[in-house]
């Protein structure tokens, strides 16, 4: 073992980790064959919500399984989408009377596996809709790419969709609420170090002692530029400026704020960053309706953080405030 990780064997990381999650959370059941973590008691009378993707983003997505949020999380290998068979099994295990919404981050592997699985489930009569999240403004959309990456903003989409489902809305309405959240959320992040995929054993990229990757992706993909580090205030200024511009947000429009750590950045720094971001938003007259600070969509052991802003209207506010018992996104209402 030459990488410093608390593990046994790289190939067992996902299985052992998920077992540990399930152990610690008495409200979920764990299907090790298909790597599905789902609510112990499903409510067949509401729209089912499923998300998932590669592992390595903990607490995403298993930490968002709970009343008012997801019904199941399908866990792929580290940074690899779950297979279509896993997703298909997840769809079958959790199907209720009102159909299922899949929330997928915009990566080709995830899209192909989730949509193939949806097609298979539909053949069996399960109604399935899918919402794609592509909130990362680091990557400019262009004719040559297939859209932006889905990153931490996904957590807001889970929350909004979860509330809509819990309120008893039907599939098309839940889908519309999730889509509204996806349309109104933007994220940008930066890394002070690379992540190390356990099976690879070495850092995905190299950074100099004073360098950062601005606009990094949650799998350690390159961002907008490799630069020298800046202060928290300088970073907050720049990130908020770009997010507001991309969202076309105007003075007085309310937002929800998510300050998300990438895994190895301590709460100390995240809270400090939260203060910088709040002052920055305050300066521009953007009221923060609700804010969340912590590790929500990590990149294994990467150092750094992302800032997400969700532009709110009355409907989104109400859904954001709706109670959630998901262990990593508690909302008391």
């Amino acid at each position, binding site marked *: 073992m030459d990488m410093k990780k608390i593990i046994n064997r790289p190939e067992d990381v996902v299985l052992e980790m998920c077992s540990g999650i399930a152990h610690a959370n008495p409200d979920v059941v764990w299907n090790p064959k298909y790597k599905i973590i789902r609510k112990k008691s499903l409510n067949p009378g509401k729209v089912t919500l499923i998300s998932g993707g590669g592992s390595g983003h903990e607490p995403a997505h298993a930490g968002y399984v709970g009343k008012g949020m997801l019904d199941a999380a399908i866990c792929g290998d580290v*940074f690899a989408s779950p297979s279509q068979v896993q997703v298909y099994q997840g769809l079958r295990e959790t199907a209720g009377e009102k159909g299922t919404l899949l929330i997928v981050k915009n990566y080709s592997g995830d899209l192909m596996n989730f949509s*193939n699985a949806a097609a298979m489930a539909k053949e069996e009569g399960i109604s399935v809709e899918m919402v794609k999240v592509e909130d990362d403004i680091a990557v400019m959309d262009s004719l*040559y*790419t297939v859209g932006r990456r889905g990153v931490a903003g996904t957590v807001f989409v889970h929350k909004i969709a979860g509330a809509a489902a819990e309120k008893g809305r039907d599939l098309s309405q839940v889908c519309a609420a999730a889509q509204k959240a996806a349309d109104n959320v933007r994220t940008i992040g930066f890394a002070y170090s690379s992540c190390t995929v356990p*099976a690879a054993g*070495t850092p995905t990229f190299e950074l100099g002692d004073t360098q950062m990757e601005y606009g990094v992706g949650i799998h350690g*993909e390159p961002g907008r530029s490799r630069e020298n580090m800046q202060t928290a205030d300088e970073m907050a200024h720049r990130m908020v400026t770009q997010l507001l511009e991309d969202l076309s947000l105007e003075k007085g429009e309310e937002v929800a704020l998510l300050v998300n750590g990438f895994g190895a950045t301590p709460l100390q720094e995240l809270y400090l960053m939260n203060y910088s971001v709040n002052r920055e938003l305050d300066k521009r007259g953007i009221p923060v309706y609700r804010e969340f600070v912590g590790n929500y969509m990590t990149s294994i052991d990467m150092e750094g953080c992302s800032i997400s802003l969700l532009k709110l209207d009355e409907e989104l506010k109400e859904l954001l405030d709706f109670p959630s018992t998901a262990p990593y996104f508690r909302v008391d209402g």
Partner: protein
Amino acid sequence: MNARQVQQMFLCVAEKMVASEEFLTEIDNKIGDGDHGIGMAIGFKGVYQELENKTYTYVNEVFHAIGMTMLCVMGGASGVLFGTVFISGIVNYPEKKEFVLEDFANIYVKSLNALKKRGKAQVGDKTMIDALEPACLGLKKAAEEGKSLHEGFAYAAAEAKRGMEYTKECKARFGRAKYYGEKAIGLQDAGATSVYLIFQAMSDWVNENISKEA
């Protein structure tokens, strides 16, 4: 080639792919997220176990077993993509106890088309398509020209290699490599490398195990 031979060939391909894990990881590390080698190793370990002690009557069954295993055990983009390579070609293809070069050409070309439809990538997008398309078209050309199995597979492998080398020149439009933009130029695509390795292993097995007269 009969079903047993195709089965033996893919057992050999599977071994070689599992052995290539580190090499593929290295490539995907540079312009992807470093998991392609792991994914292929998981997939082909599964394939090996699946094929190991089975007896198949039709060649189609071998392809079906391989494709289904990959779709099941392999996640990521490559799980679907490589699963599709093995599954799509044999959908509705008449069951046969023996495959000649033309059969291989038929099913691979069919798979290629399914894959392009599925993933939307074209030649030049720096994906496995860059290797798969010339390899499949190579098989087809060889079959049309009445070449032997050996010649056909060797030609396909050479074409795959050419395609793999060609990916070094392109910027990626799909998969995680696209975020590397210009930085990816000069580096080859992991999926295309896997395609080449698979076709090369098939060709090698045929050379070593099928008499030239076949």
